[in-house]
């Protein structure tokens, strides 16, 4: 097939121009926990940094900062991602949910309550991320098997070794939801 060079193409003139920003700070709109925020960030700012340093949402933790521990887990349009490896600029119109946005009330989410009940917290540093993964699992799969829970939390590292308690907390939360 003969390929034309881009400028020969009839639609070339209508193509949108490339949009380039940075390295200086740029304005950005983020939708977080149901609220819209306007902030100013440099392109290398990760979503985790923007949440913690600009929006004071410090429930999201940064541990490895390399995608390898899942402490920084938040939801993008409901799916758990590691926010330390997502640039704030890339979020676009997607809705960000953090641990602070799990409930709109003062009350705990049932999974948070189950974590306390089942002693699934030691130092607590990995806990917000783990809870985000576990709640996302229960939304998808209200009655998960132990295997499904293990798979859902397989990216999380807990230095304190709370894993078995996390399993019982999630199983219990799934039972409570049922009731």
């Amino acid at each position, binding site marked *: *097939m003969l*390929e*034309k*060079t*881009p400028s020969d193409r009839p639609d070339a003139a209508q*193509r*949108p*121009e*490339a*949009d*380039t*920003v*940075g*390295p200086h700070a*740029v304005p950005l709109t983020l939708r977080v926990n149901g609220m819209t925020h306007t902030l100013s960030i*440099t*392109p*290398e700012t*990760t979503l985790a940094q923007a949440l913690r340093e600009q929006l004071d949402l410090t429930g999201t933790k940064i541990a490895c*900062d*390399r*995608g390898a521990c*899942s402490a920084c*887990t938040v939801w*993008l349009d409901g*799916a*758990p*991602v*590691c926010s330390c*490896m*997502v*640039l704030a*600029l*890339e979020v*676009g119109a997607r809705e960000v949910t953090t641990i602070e946005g799990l409930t709109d009330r003062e009350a705990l989410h049932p999974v948070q309550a189950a974590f306390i009940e089942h002693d699934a917290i030691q130092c607590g540093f990995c806990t917000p991320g783990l809870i985000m*993964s576990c709640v996302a699992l229960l939304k998808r799969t209200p009655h998960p098997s132990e295997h499904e829970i*293990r*798979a*859902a939390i*397989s*990216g*999380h590292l807990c230095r304190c070794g709370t894993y078995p308690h996390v399993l019982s907390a999630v199983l219990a939360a799934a039972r409570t939801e049922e009731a």
Partner: protein
Amino acid sequence: MNGFEWMSPGSLEQAARAASATVATAMACRSGTPASDAAVLKAGGMDLLDLMKEGLLSPRRLINLRTLPGLDRIEPAGGGLRIGPNVTLAQLAADERLRTRWSALADSAGGAASPQIRQIATLAGNLLQRPRCWYFRSRAHHCVRKGGETCFAFAGENQYHAIFEHNGCAIVHPSTCATALVALGARLEITDRAGAKRTVSLEEFFLLPQADLQRENRLESGEIVTAIELPAQPASVRSVHLRYAQTESFDRPLAEVAVVLDLAEAVCRKAAIVLGACAPVPHRARAAEAALTGQRIDEALARAAAHAALQDAMPLSGNAYKVPIFTAVVRRAILAALVA
């Protein structure tokens, strides 16, 4: 991480013309300080940001491929499938067509990294990620793959390094999906700055150290992978991908094997067996394939084929343990493919 310009191209051509270097060329340097004037392509950014956070790559500009439309679909094409480069590992793992007809790919994608990473990481980025050798990933070790003078792995800590084809550099190819895709006979469609397309088989796309010590594949700067093509698969074909890791969670595999069998009853018409995490490129076990071809597969034959797959292994000082692990995983993968 260094500061950079963030470019959202309006078209593929704009992206290709803006790219001044591949990540491999942007990282290679004599001095140990990577160039600061490169404009490089970014997909999910999992590997790119990792390299930048470690100071191994400091580009002036990132070109975001993620917002270009139409690159994130899996579409039927000539009996096979055409997979967009931006399709995520999570999409691959969940796709029903892949799970039934090309299950080795779905398995490999679903077993790679963590759920959080699979949500972001793309297939093209997965194939093009740089190696995980710990000396390569350390700024303190300016090894030959980065433009330095020595390979630190041969005399150093090499328990996760290659047992095959380590000629001057002992990386294992980092991509789990590549293992499955080479076994499935996948091809890459690559588009250059002028918009011209070429296709190349994935097997030929990857480069051994003796062909080039500083890059793992034939991607040239200004080229974009625009599709990963899977050939049509007769209903008689079965495929599996098995991995074995130190932990059950998201660890990188110590051994992984993809097996694709074309079967008439238990008689093998054709076999493709590819070992990952064992060589600088996905390693085709031709002796094992030959052992199966035309034969009725049973436990004993699978065992013999597995031994054939490892007969030329040349373990380094710290990784002989990989040989029996691979032997077991090859045998299990053949038997699993039989009933897949």
